[in-house]
């Protein structure tokens, strides 16, 4: 294919009026200043993430500057690479997730955990040291440092890989870090975009999976995804028979309610089991109160996680290709981003929206 010259533009939020959070207009984008380590990507698809909603609505506390183009589940083809880039060449199929920069020098970066670099730069609503703002993937193209670009293996379709770059990675990382594998029992709380991936990956990694959901309508799908047990959280005592059962709980809860104390989840853990919250609620919604007693009875841990490293992303994509992991997605043209973000906000996605870039045809 001939290598296109990218005209950088995207669907952006242009008004800070909270009632206009899902109104998008096509806006020009100033891309990152191209450097020797950069990879330029012509975007084919971009997934729609809960982060997009939290950011557009201002729920995460940082009032976004406008215009703002969100989207960080990006896949496409490489158009050009900087001189220092050896891993990629034009035409390669690649993905970019929720992070687009880090310092590269601190202990954390050197340990391969760049997703925890204190100087990390997010794919949108961030700013580079030279002042250029980062704009996301509801757009025609993006430039990223090669550390944040992942090759998509043959055998994985681009439209399926898109949402793996954030949703998939965000649950794969804690599954991997916390030892998911054969012989382990994993609980997944909340079966949406992230939750459904947690089931698919935990099964692909060989674990036994309990899926927890309050939506009775999802039960048949959840069984098809491969969950070994489906537990309805409608019955407030659902956790009692499951005391001491789970090694790992992946929680995708995005809004914590006071009638659901954390200790009911924690009680389901085996000794030294781990509850990892992947969901990041709005800034005014902290974790429910816990007492040190709640952590003592089974010596359990509560933790969090943030995206994933490139090392984890590559492993995840290969696992997906090897085991035929196929996410449950709904494709929409990118011009319908409003429908998609509103669907995510109201819990309608089954189980992830993927927007097909429709501003420029690269084929």
């Amino acid at each position: 294919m001939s290598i296109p010259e990218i005209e950088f533009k995207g669907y952006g939020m242009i008004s800070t009026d909270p009632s206009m959070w899902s109104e998008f207009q096509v806006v020009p984008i100033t891309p990152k200043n191209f450097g020797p380590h950069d990879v330029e990507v012509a975007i084919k698809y971009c997934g729609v993430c809960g982060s997009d909603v939290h950011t557009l609505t201002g729920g995460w506390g940082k009032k976004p500057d406008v215009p703002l183009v969100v989207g960080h589940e990006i896949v496409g083809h490489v158009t050009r690479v900087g001189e220092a880039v050896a891993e990629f060449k034009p035409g390669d199929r690649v993905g970019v997730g929720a992070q687009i920069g880090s310092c590269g020098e601190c202990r954390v970066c050197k340990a391969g955990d760049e997703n925890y670099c204190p100087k990390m730069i997010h794919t949108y609503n961030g700013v580079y040291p030279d002042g250029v703002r980062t704009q996301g993937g509801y757009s025609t193209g993006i430039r990223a440092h090669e550390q944040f670009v992942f090759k998509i293996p043959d055998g994985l379709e681009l439209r399926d890989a898109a949402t793996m770059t954030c949703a998939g990675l965000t649950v794969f990382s804690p599954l991997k870090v916390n030892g998911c594998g054969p012989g382990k029992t994993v609980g997944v709380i909340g079966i949406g975009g992230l939750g459904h991936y947690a089931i698919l990956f935990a099964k692909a990694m060989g674990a036994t999976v309990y899926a927890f959901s309050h939506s009775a309508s999802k039960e048949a799908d959840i069984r098809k995804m491969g969950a070994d047990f489906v537990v309805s959280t409608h019955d407030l005592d659902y956790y009692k028979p499951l005391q001491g059962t789970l090694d790992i709980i992946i929680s995708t809860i995005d809004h914590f309610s006071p009638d659901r104390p954390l200790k009911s989840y924690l009680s389901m853990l085996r000794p030294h089991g781990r509850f990892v919250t992947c969901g990041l609620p709005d800034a005014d919604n902290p974790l429910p109160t816990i007492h040190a007693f709640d952590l003592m009875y089974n010596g359990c841990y509560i933790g969090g996680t943030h995206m994933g490293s490139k090392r984890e992303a590559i492993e995840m994509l290969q696992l997906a290709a090897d085991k035929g992991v196929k996410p449950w997605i709904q494709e929409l043209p990118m011009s319908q981003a409003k429908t998609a973000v509103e669907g995510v906000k109201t819990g309608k996605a089954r189980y992830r929206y993927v927007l097909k870039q429709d501003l420029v045809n690269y084929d």
Partner: protein
Amino acid sequence: MSAVEFKGYALTDPSRWNDLKVSSFQPKTFAPDDVEIAITHCGVCGSDVHTLTQGWGESKLPLVVGHEIIGHVTRVGDKVKEFKKGDRVGVGAKIGSCMQCRPCKSDYENYCPKSISTYNSEYPDGVVSQGGYATAIRAHQQFVFPIPDEIESRDAASMMCAGLTVYSPLKTYGTGPGKKVGIMGIGGLGHYAVLWAKAMGAEVYAFTHDKSKMGDIKKMGADHIINTEEKDFFKPLANTLDLIVSTRDVFSPDTPLSDYLSMLFVHGKFITVGIPDANQPLPSLHPFSFASNGCLIGGSSIGSKKDALDMLELARKKNVRPWIEEMPMKDVGKALQNVKANKVRYRYVLTQDLN
């Protein structure tokens, strides 16, 4: 058949929580797996204070507390092969478990959902477990630990709970050479954590608000001592520590827990072994606090027999000696008062004086 008399210093009136009266009590009904012990020493634990003051909830009455017990075996049940009369042994904060569940079968008997505490618990037959501020105790052999000859009884006593409670998470995490370990709160538990972590080869950061302790903490071997009263004390340590063991016993809504978490390196752990009164939950946390370094907060409950034997072996090999103050058991009221007021340097050990 031994003629051990069971009596101890008991709580009878919660409004006079540290005024303990000598009373006889009914011991555990002797069973084939049991070991009967004549007590010589018992340490004083924060748990004793939390229980007697009713801070952890209503306690049984009358109640003899104390769970850092050392003594000599007076008799053993038919199923006991590990111990014989005259052996020097210790008992800690747990005294029974179901022995059948998955945790019990994986050397995690301290996490058995049916575990029985050394005091203020009830055996299946209704007998209330009474603790070590007493002449004697009976315990299932799984909860009795042989004391190496090289460790004196007065030193071993507080290892049974304070020592073990911090040793277990230090070990579970893998404390050793190359690891940076933070210890918050240098009291009974905290000082043990410094001693063990150094003995295990780690680099130790000790956190205290008490300047008067700093000379001692240096002698205990801490590599770095940080005063938590200093503004922004945590900032230079961002992303540094692999593990924090916190012995903080008091939490308020203002306790800056997320500042402590920020000191952890990626996937580091903050383990609270301090258990405050029931009306003091942890301060509010948002997942943002965990997202910046993928850290975990955990708890820990004492330790297993396996942990205890490892710990005693470490103490023996590296000649670890705690910083204790000894007094006769009749002065227990004063000891309890001082523990509550943070005056102890760094653990009281009572010598049994009833017989």
